[in-house]
């Protein structure tokens, strides 16, 4: 069994490394990430958005009297500014994300629920970021991961449909290996660019602790870790230098398999330190890095997910889709 070649759906003439990307994978590991994304990002944040009052909406930066205008961000860039600043449109997108996310969670209306949930959650983030910065770009990795999972549900909709109809969802290897390398490259580049730009702007001075001290002093002087950093520049320099090295080396650090858990956990520690000291929590990045570094599907608790049985009629739309 150990020597058996894994099934791949890449052409036989393709290079070996390309063929590996299309090896078939069981769904449990990927579905754990999907459940996190749908429950804790799409559904939870849509509900929070729907609970936002008109007064809270109007208190965002974009509506302050001195602001000169709004330049929509990312996917909202092509929309009229009147839509981007409209309370009703924000609520409409949140309702769309909530409903489609719930349908995807229960494997209904596939693959359209996956496509619409990804699109509406991504758009919802761009709309929010267009009105108030507020570190909403922390949702970029979840949106990237959802694009990959929604693409899997689209490319393999017939396999998934058949598996659901025959109640063999957990036994059908419909995921492909490429989801993980593509997400690793995305996360690696996101961090590496950040580190490389720090080096490009600051050169050898990029690890200077003075700027860390002054920014901490401005943003959160009374945070849990702030006082030691503000009082002791060598510590600030050590943390700043460590951050630049960790970020700049993230692409190779995450792509080399034996290095991946160490690098990913170091980045998680960095996010934890930022969260504790500055109150800026990049929780989605921490979850995705942990998911990429470890086989969470081998945990006993994860095996409980295999007991979930989806209704066979959930497959109907996918079966009939083009």
């Amino acid at each position, binding site marked *: 069994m150990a020597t058996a070649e894994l099934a791949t759906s890449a052409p036989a003439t393709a290079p070996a490394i390309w063929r590996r990307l299309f090896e078939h994978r069981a769904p449990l590991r990927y579905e754990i990430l999907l459940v996190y994304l749908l429950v804790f990002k799409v559904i939870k944040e849509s509900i929070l958005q729907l609970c936002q009052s008109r007064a809270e909406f109007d208190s965002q930066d974009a509506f302050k009297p001195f602001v000169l205008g709004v330049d929509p961000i*990312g996917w909202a860039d092509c929309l009229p500014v009147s839509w981007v600043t409209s309370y009703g449109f924000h609520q409409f997108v949140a309702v769309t994300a909530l409903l489609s996310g719930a349908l995807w969670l229960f494997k209904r209306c596939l693959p359209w629920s996956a496509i619409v949930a990804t699109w509406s959650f991504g758009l919802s983030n761009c709309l929010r970021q267009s009105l108030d910065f507020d570190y909403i770009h922390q949702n970029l990795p979840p949106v990237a991961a959802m694009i990959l999972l929604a693409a899997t549900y689209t490319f393999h909709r017939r396999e998934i449909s*058949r598996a659901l109809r025959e109640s063999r969802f957990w036994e*059908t290897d419909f995921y492909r290996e490429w989801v993980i390398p593509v997400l690793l490259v995305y996360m690696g580049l996101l961090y590496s660019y950040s580190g490389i*730009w*720090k080096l490009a702007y*600051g050169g050898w001075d990029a690890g200077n602790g003075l700027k860390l001290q002054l920014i901490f002093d401005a943003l959160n002087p009374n945070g849990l870790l702030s006082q030691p950093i*503000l009082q002791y*520049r060598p510590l600030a320099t050590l943390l700043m230098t460590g951050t630049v090295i960790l970020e700049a080396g993230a692409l190779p650090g995450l792509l080399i398999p034996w290095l991946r858990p160490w690098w990913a956990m170091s980045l998680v520690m960095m996010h934890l330190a930022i969260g504790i000291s500055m109150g800026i929590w990049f929780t989605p990045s921490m979850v995705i890095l942990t998911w990429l570094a470890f086989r969470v599907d081998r945990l006993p608790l994860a095996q409980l997910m295999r007991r979930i049985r989806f209704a066979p009629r959930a497959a109907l739309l996918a079966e009939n889709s083009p």
Partner: protein
Amino acid sequence: MGNAGSSCTLATIAEQIFVALGLLLPLVVPPIVVEAFPMTASPMFSVAVPLRMKYTLTDKAGRKLDNDVYGLRTSPLWNMESSFGPKFPKNVVATSEPPADMNALLQHIREVGRSTHAEFPLVLECITKGPIDDRTVGVISTRKWTIDDGDR
């Protein structure tokens, strides 16, 4: 590990193109679409901050006036502001450098004060923070200017 239940069909051209784009686009897009990837092309802690200036403007009654209206905002995230959706008024001061022409700054504040019907005289305070020794940061200087309404 088996492959029970999967159809073993060849990956479509569309799927292969999607994977190729998925590997290539993160290399190209984040530095270009800066506003969508603010931590990538213009990240926090990327620009040097040798000093930090903090301005406070008050009117005759001691009421604090809005720094954004007078262009006196000094954000530690100023290098990221180009990636923000809301467009703030242009600043007339820098976060980490003293004003090049103090008279021009005071004249600007005077003109904005007149146009917003502020109660003169206005008092501008600038606290400069920076390294006070080789270990800690603190207040280096505090300066104040009184701005009357000129020839009006």
